[in-house]
């Protein structure tokens, strides 16, 4: 046996230091399908409590939608449970290609390739298409999976200040000697809920001969008037060179992701992207569910319209309650508390009031930027939001923070 007591102690100490730093993550067991209301066992061993869920990526409320569930059942019956293969050996069914074609149409691109997740898509795409002569210039707040993907790629990487177009332009000028320049951004930023300035990014890309890369995981299905994403929201639909997105949030919530974009770039991923080449194919049951999601989204904007209404109602309600929120158009609405302990206490108190939302603090967000991140869903009804707003008011009153802005909150609780 090579796992000696010394080895065991080493890892136990590592874990203890994570715990002491307040960074230990614990799962909470949910005894229900995903939805606006869920039953959460917290703390471990407690009787599950029914709470309003304000922290899921279930933006369109499709995670447990009866038609999606039914389509997944049918897929299971007609195409089986698994394919026991990567895509290029014997893992591609007709429905995989059909889903890729529907995603291509939905996202306004030339072709699409499915990946086991968007994390995998981001991990594979840069290395597949770029080399040492190229540069990737990323917004400083892009998702961790993009950072990992860029690190796996031999191209030079650089960053620009969050959504700072002047800084991006400086970087584009600095890297004019490179073969290819790629501007890399999220569409909706997952921690702040703000939206990338895709119209300005596309204009800069055209001016400085750069490609555009957009991770639209927190936007696909609902941003823009027909829900196509951030590029539709910003009026540049059809102009993005590479889009990655997930089927694990708005588009059904199960798992799976894709790279969608210029035909040759997608083909390069099919030939070279390692997470695609060396992972099992997306399970038929998920593909079948996702095809139904596409049907629902092509036939109606009802769900994204409801999400938009919920978002406006929620943002307005929080402001009227006297809470300090980050402005924006997206269904990610951070309630700013700045102090990490306050964020943790606030989340606990909300749970006691029947509302499930999570506190985020350093290193997930910058120091002194602790918050409760709330996320809206089309599955929420107005009644859910009214109950949740009342809980935020009650907990806010308890901590004496209603009506306080950043300066006052910092003065009262510190950073």
């Amino acid at each position: 046996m090579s796992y000696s007591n010394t080895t065991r102690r080493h890892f136990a100490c590592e874990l203890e230091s994570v715990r002491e730093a307040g960074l230990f993550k614990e799962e909470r067991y949910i005894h229900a399908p995903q939805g606006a209301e869920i039953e959460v066992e917290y703390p471990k061993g407690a009787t599950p409590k029914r709470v309003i869920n304000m922290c899921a990526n279930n933006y369109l409320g499709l995670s447990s939608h009866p038609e999606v569930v039914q389509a997944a059942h049918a897929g299971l019956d007609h195409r089986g449970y698994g394919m026991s293969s990567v895509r290029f050996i014997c893992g591609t069914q007709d429905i995989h290609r059909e889903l890729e074609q529907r995603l291509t149409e939905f996202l306004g691109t030339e072709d699409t390739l499915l990946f086991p997740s968007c994390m995998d898509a981001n991990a594979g795409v840069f290395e597949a298409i770029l080399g040492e002569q190229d540069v990737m210039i990323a917004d400083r707040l892009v998702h961790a999976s993009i950072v990992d993907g860029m690190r796996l790629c031999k191209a030079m990487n650089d960053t620009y200040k969050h959504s700072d177009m002047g800084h991006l332009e400086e970087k584009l000028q600095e890297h004019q000697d490179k073969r290819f320049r790629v501007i890399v951004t999220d569409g909706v930023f997952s921690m702040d809920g703000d939206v990338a300035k895709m119209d300005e990014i596309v204009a800069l890309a055209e001016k400085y001969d750069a490609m555009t890369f957009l991770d639209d995981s927190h936007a696909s299905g609902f941003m823009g008037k027909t829900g196509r994403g951030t590029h539709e929201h910003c009026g540049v639909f059809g102009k993005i060179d590479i889009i990655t997105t997930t089927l694990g949030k708005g588009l059904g919530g199960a798992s799976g992701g894709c790279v969608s974009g210029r035909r040759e770039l997608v083909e390069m991923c099919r030939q070279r992207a390692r997470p695609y080449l060396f992972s099992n194919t997306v399970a038929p049951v998920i593909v079948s569910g996702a095809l139904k999601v596409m049907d629902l989204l092509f036939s109606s904007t009802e769900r994204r319209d409801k999400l938009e209404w919920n978002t406006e109602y929620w943002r307005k309600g929080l402001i009227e309650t006297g809470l300090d929120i980050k402005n924006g158009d997206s269904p990610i609405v951070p309630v700013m508390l700045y102090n990490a302990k306050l964020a943790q206490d606030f989340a606990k108190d909300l749970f006691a009031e029947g509302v499930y939302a999570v506190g985020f603090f350093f290193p997930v967000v910058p120091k002194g930027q602790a918050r409760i991140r709330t996320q809206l869903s089309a599955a929420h009804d107005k009644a859910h939001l009214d109950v949740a707003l009342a809980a935020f008011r009650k907990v806010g009153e308890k901590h004496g923070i209603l009506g306080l802005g950043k300066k006052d909150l910092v003065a009262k609780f510190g950073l």
Partner: protein
Amino acid sequence: MDEMKQVVLEYVRREYLEEDDDREVEVDTPLISGGIVDSFSMVSLKRFLEKKYGIQIPDADASPEAFDTVESIVVLVQRFGGK
């Protein structure tokens, strides 16, 4: 050395602080452990130093500790021949 500190300090402020940033950066301010510069964004600082002072800093030496304050950065630059 003081001049180099000023040059590096100015670059760090310009490159990493936002317009409405209320954080202050001085020569002894922890940059990485203080959350002002993350390891992902550190590469532009390394590239700036190499270009400005005509040196090569091996990746192994460009550690978060060595880049944690303007003072430690200046020590690193001088170690690799920067003047």
